[in-house]
């Protein structure tokens, strides 16, 4: 599904290398988790994959189902099936949530040569999915993320993911800022989307999310590289002992 090879990334504006050769492969139907100390490059990886400007790829490649992601505009990557749940969802005053999401769904469909979703179907679907995530219908009428609490923003990310039905979902700390019940809702939302044809890359600091979304593979990222890869037990090790042992071991 997603294949990253030797990816090196520096900042465009300054001479600062952030990703120093990332290798990662997420197969369809699998859930991979990435953990790692603050500043190790996890968000940078998610941004570079989704096409945010300000970064320069100096080496390596990233493909989604064999297609070169790095060569596409952000909207083309989305239409190709890539989705990023932002660590910090952006507030957009003046742009209504509904209009935004309907335009997003239909832009992607159009780009893929599919039929657009009618206004009624869209409404029906978003209402049902919002209900599952306990998102108030009133909230949907507001401008994108404006005045949403931290947890509401994260739930809104999951709602967007559910509506867009991407092939490859990257979740950047979608659990942070969520209360215990919201975390469960979000995990249920993610689990409901788990399927044969869909891959997940879940960036998190905490084992708790992984209790609900059971990962197949866990990676540890440090200083711009994946330094260790293992099974779900790796996350437990981090939870209990922190990163010191792992980092010492690979140093």
């Amino acid at each position, binding site marked *: 599904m997603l294949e990253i090879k030797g990816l090196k990334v520096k900042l465009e504006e300054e001479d600062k290398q952030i990703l120093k050769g990332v290798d990662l492969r997420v197969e369809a139907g699998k859930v991979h988790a990435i953990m790692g100390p603050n500043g190790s490059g996890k968000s940078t990886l998610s941004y570079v994959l989704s096409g*945010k400007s300000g970064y320069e790829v100096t080496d390596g490649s990233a493909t989604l189902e064999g297609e070169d992601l790095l060569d596409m505009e952000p*909207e083309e990557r989305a239409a190709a099936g890539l989705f*990023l749940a*932002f660590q910090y969802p*952006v507030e957009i005053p*003046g*742009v209504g949530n509904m209009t935004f999401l309907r335009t997003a769904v239909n*832009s992607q469909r159009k780009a893929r040569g599919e039929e657009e979703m009618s206004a009624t179907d869209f409404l029906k679907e978003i209402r049902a999915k919002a209900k599952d995530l306990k998102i108030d219908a009133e909230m949907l009428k507001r401008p994108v993320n404006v005045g949403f609490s931290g947890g509401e923003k994260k739930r809104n990310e999951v709602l967007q993911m559910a509506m867009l039905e991407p092939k490859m979902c990257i979740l950047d700390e979608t659990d942070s800022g969520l209360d215990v019940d919201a975390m469960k809702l979000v995990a249920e939302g993610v689990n409901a989307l788990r399927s044969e044809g869909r891959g997940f890359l879940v960036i998190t600091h905490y084992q708790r999310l992984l209790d609900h979304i059971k990962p197949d593979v866990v990676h540890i990222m440090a200083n711009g590289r994946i330094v260790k890869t293992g099974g779900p037990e790796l996350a437990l090790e981090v939870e209990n002992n922190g990163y010191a042992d792992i980092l010492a071991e690979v140093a």
Partner: protein
Amino acid sequence: MNAVLKAKQEAAATRLDGADVPSGAGWSQAAREDALSRVRNMGLPSRRDEYWKYTRPDTLTSAEAGEAAVFETGEEPVFGSFDRLKIVFVDGVFSAEKSDDLALEGIEISRLAEAGDISWASELYGTLEANGQTPVERPLAALNTALATDGVLIRVLNTPSKPVSLIYHHENTRSDAVLHHVVKVEAGASFTLLENGPAAARFNKVLEADIADKAAFHHVRAQGRDHERRAVTHMFARLGTESTFKSFTLTVNGVLTRNECIIELTGDDAFAHVAGAALGDGDFLHDDTVFVTHDAVNCESRQVFKKVLRNGATGVFQGKILVKPGAQKTDGYQKSQSLLLDGDSQFLAKPELEIYADDVACSHGSTSGAIDEDALFYLQARGIPKDIATDFMTLAFLAEAVEEIEDEALAAEINGRLEGWLTRRRG
């Protein structure tokens, strides 16, 4: 006498020598002669004037109008689908043939050029304009009072069933139109005035609006889309107790447009909102100059001006709130913002407050910026193409101004025009 003033007076004399100054204009003759002598004394605006620091007045003051191509779109004109009483001016001349019958229950309409001795109008014509000459001089408005041969006089006695719509047509590439409209909304009545269409190669327009106690005046104007237009417009409004004034202007294209709005809140508990959305692409200068005077207790004024500029376009905003002694509990708000879609465009703003009362809440803010990159990326990351995402952000930026239009259908009409303008420019 200083040399600058002398030069300005000479410019006025030259301009007036070449103009057809109406004589024997009956009831309006005294007001015209007064305006004429004021213009001669003030002189015409010059580049050296503080009030014309950002906008060059030369092409507005020159003896002859420059040439401007007639702009045809083939599209349905703004407000085309609305039920309204249509009054049409072609190159600044009233067209009976193209206009509806000037009859609508609740109001009296007459043509300035033909009006007999109308006492309410003779009390108003040139009066609000003359009042508006202090503390800042507005010679082009006085020139208008002196020279205007056409326009409408509208007296609103009772709320009419539909808006009155002033429609301008530009046919002659060298036309130099001067129109002067006077509106009086009598106590308790409510009135909506619409204006649209390219008026002339050069256009000087004055609108004087006297809004009596508990009366309401709504004004929605769409200027444009003629590219080569040069226009200077003045709107003078006087508000009585508990009255409402709401004016919105959409301005697109045009090489030079200066819109001045001079509002005086003279009765307690009155409410004046003036808003504008301007879209400029290329050789375009748009200037909003606003002066709001609070001279009564517990009044609210609000200025919301938004400009979207690209391709070297220039936006200007000069706005002032003057709170006179005793105008307590004034709530004054002023916002001017520009969205610069590229690095070539510029926005020049001069917001001012002058307050002589102590129990007052006034705020002003002026900003100029590019599209928020993070928001743009967020939209794109959800699959929305960059150009559509940019348009979303642009409409969102303009929304606060458009929302000042109270009538939802009119607001939707304006939004549709904004979308059209943006869509036509999608690369």
